[in-house]
């Protein structure tokens, strides 16, 4: 197969990927008060990874990001379940979330919520699933 001329896409990707990753994390964190959240954050993150797969071949991406995405999915689900169970240890019903205002050194008065941990689990699961699907299909030539 003729080696495709991918100079254009490589240069664009090198810049775009960083922007997309940053945007994805921003979407994730700002989900609490503004549009965003676990799903959209995870999906955007996954689309950045897909862009990497499209630009560079599967093998080099796999070598450089040595994460097994199926395990990532499972970890995400477990985090979500453990968040729920954590409430049960303190005698609250399953999946009770809480929030509080703390004074952190740099950020000042911030609101910390346990829902964010749950959202992390959700985001990891979404990333893992999307990338697993794409990688499996892409691998099978």
């Amino acid at each position: 197969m003729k080696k495709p001329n991918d100079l254009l896409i490589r240069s664009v990707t090198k810049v775009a990927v960083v922007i997309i990753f940053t945007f994805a994390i921003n979407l994730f964190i700002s989900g609490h008060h503004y549009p965003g959240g676990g799903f959209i954050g995870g999906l955007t993150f996954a689309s950045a990874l897909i862009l990497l797969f499209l630009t560079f071949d599967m093998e080099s991406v796999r070598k450089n990001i040595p994460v097994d995405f199926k395990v990532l999915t499972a970890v995400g689900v477990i985090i979500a379940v453990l968040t729920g169970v954590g409430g049960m240890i303190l005698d609250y019903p399953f999946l009770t979330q809480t929030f509080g205002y703390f004074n952190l050194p740099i950020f000042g008065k911030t609101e910390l919520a346990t829902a964010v941990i749950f959202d992390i689990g959700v985001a990891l699961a979404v990333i893992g699933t999307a990338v697993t699907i794409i990688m499996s299909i892409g691998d099978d030539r």
Partner: protein
Amino acid sequence: METMMSILVGVLFAIGIYLILTKTLLRIILGTSILGHGVNLLIITMGGLKKGGPPLLGIKGLSYADSLPQALLLTAIVINFATTALFLVLSYRAYKVLGTDNTEQLRGNENE
């Protein structure tokens, strides 16, 4: 607006179901996809359209749009995505193994 959306949803359903009833696997998958979009639009229409601002408490408004259908739809969209992916891969593997994508040739009972 709701009336127009209802009619549009009906059209989408009709087209989706028609495609599902055809013989080619690809058309069936496209039909399910269209059906999924139709359902999403139906759910959000049922919540009342344009009745307030977006459901963000940071934006001060008189009233907020119905937030519950939106939450349900978010879940629905993501799950639709996952099942469409599964369906696609299934049809791809079925084609590879059985050599056909025509459902008339794919039929059969366990004890025939």
